[in-house]
């Protein structure tokens, strides 16, 4: 397989020692196996996510995204910009679509970018890591390097909002996207396809400003996984992962529940199935340890002939 190359936009939460640094670790391991080369956009910046709106207004938000595009065009020409964070991807996609549709907005954006010595030529593609996996590699290609099928693991695929709406993954429905379940099954685990909270919002960035309201959402998301006898929840979004994992202890205090459900990234499942050790799969980065996944990761597989 020819090496595939992308301009990587890791996002602030995935930086070294950020709240989703274990996501980055597992993505690196997964990409190495799949022969995907991710080169960080030099000096990339944060986008402000969906929550920075009151400070940014409209143009400044687009300008922040366009700076990353311009840097990618300059330093990594011809490569799609690939984000691992749902919010980064959504914000970047929105900016790209908006600038493509409005010559005025495009001109204003470039007027601002000029102050940083940059120019955006509107040539980049913007994609989520999941799109790269499904569209450029394909389920069959993803199955090839498996050395440890995740047999016996029951997994609730929690897609959340922003990898699903408003853009979503091509060919999937908003109400019941199947790609995460398919990915889980490709890896040899059991996908709990009846899991009701697949596309429920966890509260997103409002988990910080409206903790009680968000924790009610998170409680539903986790309890439904228990109802379906899940061993763990898996998600493609770093904020979903953080919110759903971290607040379980708070919910337990507030509601007298005993939630203790591990929440992992799709990339961690893949890294483990491809033979990564717990550390390389980022399994040491959890507040609630994904024990069954760790057990598989430490198992020694007979060397391939």
């Amino acid at each position, binding site marked *: 397989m020819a090496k595939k190359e992308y301009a990587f936009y890791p996002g*602030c*939460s995935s*930086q070294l*020692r*950020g*709240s*989703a*640094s*274990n996501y980055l670790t597992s993505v690196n391991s997964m990409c190495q196996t799949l022969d995907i080369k991710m080169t960080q956009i030099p*000096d*990339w*910046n*944060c*986008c*402000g996510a*969906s*929550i*920075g*709106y*009151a*400070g940014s*207004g*409209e*143009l*400044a938000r687009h*300008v*922040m995204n366009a*700076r990353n595009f311009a840097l990618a065009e300059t330093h990594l020409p011809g490569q799609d910009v690939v984000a691992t964070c749902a919010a980064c991807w959504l914000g970047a996609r929105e900016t790209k679509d908006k600038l493509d549709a409005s010559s005025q907005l495009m001109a*204003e*954006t470039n*007027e*601002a*970018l*000029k*102050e*940083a*010595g*940059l120019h955006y030529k509107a040539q980049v593609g913007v994609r989520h890591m999941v799109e790269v996996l499904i569209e450029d590699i394909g389920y069959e290609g993803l199955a090839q390097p498996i050395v440890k099928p995740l047999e016996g693991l029951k997994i609730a695929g929690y897609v959340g*909002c*922003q990898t699903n*709406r*408003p853009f979503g993954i091509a060919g999937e429905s908003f109400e019941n996207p199947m790609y995460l379940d398919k990915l889980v099954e490709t890896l040899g685990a059991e996908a709990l396809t009846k899991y009701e909270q697949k596309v*429920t*919002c966890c*509260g*997103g*960035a*409002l988990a*910080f400003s*409206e903790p009680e*309201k*968000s924790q009610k*959402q998170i409680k539903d998301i986790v309890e439904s996984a228990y109802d379906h006898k899940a061993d763990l929840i898996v998600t493609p979004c770093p904020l979903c992962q953080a919110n759903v994992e*971290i*607040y379980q*202890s*708070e919910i337990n205090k507030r509601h007298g529940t005993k939630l203790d459900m591990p929440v992992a990234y799709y990339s961690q499942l893949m890294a483990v199935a491809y033979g990564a050790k717990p550390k390389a799969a980022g399994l040491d*980065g*959890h*507040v609630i340890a994904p024990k069954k996944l760790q057990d598989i990761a430490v198992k020694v597989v007979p060397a391939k002939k």
Partner: protein
Amino acid sequence: MGAPNELNLAALAKYSNDFLREVETHVEEGEWVKMCMQCGVCAGSCPFGPHWEHSPQKIFMMIRAGKREEVLSSESMWMCTSCYNCVVRCPRKLPITQIMHGLATYAHRLGLAPKMQPTRQWSLQFWDNCTRTGRVNELKLTLGLYFRDGLVAGLKKAWAMRAIGFGLLRAKRLNPFELLRGHECKDQAGIHRMLAKAYEIEARRLRLDKFKLQG
């Protein structure tokens, strides 16, 4: 912020009884509001639905009815989690999420947004944190949120949340050194110049140029 400002007085004088036109001119995606056909689909879409005093559908109705004060001082728009449930369902394809953010932002710029609204404060803090160096500093951001109500309240909250903080620290997902020097972009000066220009252009476009948009 919080007290109606000069910008608000100017807007009042200019649009005295045409709030719809004011929204169309000054709010991001505001020109879509008149397309709403009041079907009510969006009203049942919000994750924090019970906490919205006025659903998006109602807000659109109130805008057309000229209920300026009520809309702009409402807490409702600040309940939007950017989940995009409404957007994918709306038969008229209104960019409802952006309109909610746009209304909230406009209310904030006019000084009419509820002063203690936690999401307003969080939104401003997030943008400020992210644009200062070009990268979000998660530790300062979290601490800032705890301490926004003052030292004692902040200490109490930080204490209540200590289990989470220690858990993350142990899992190597929170870096105490971010307090001293976090992640940052190299070309911060360029980013600041670029953003200053963007605010200036937006103010010019919205014909709000006498006023500083940021802050």
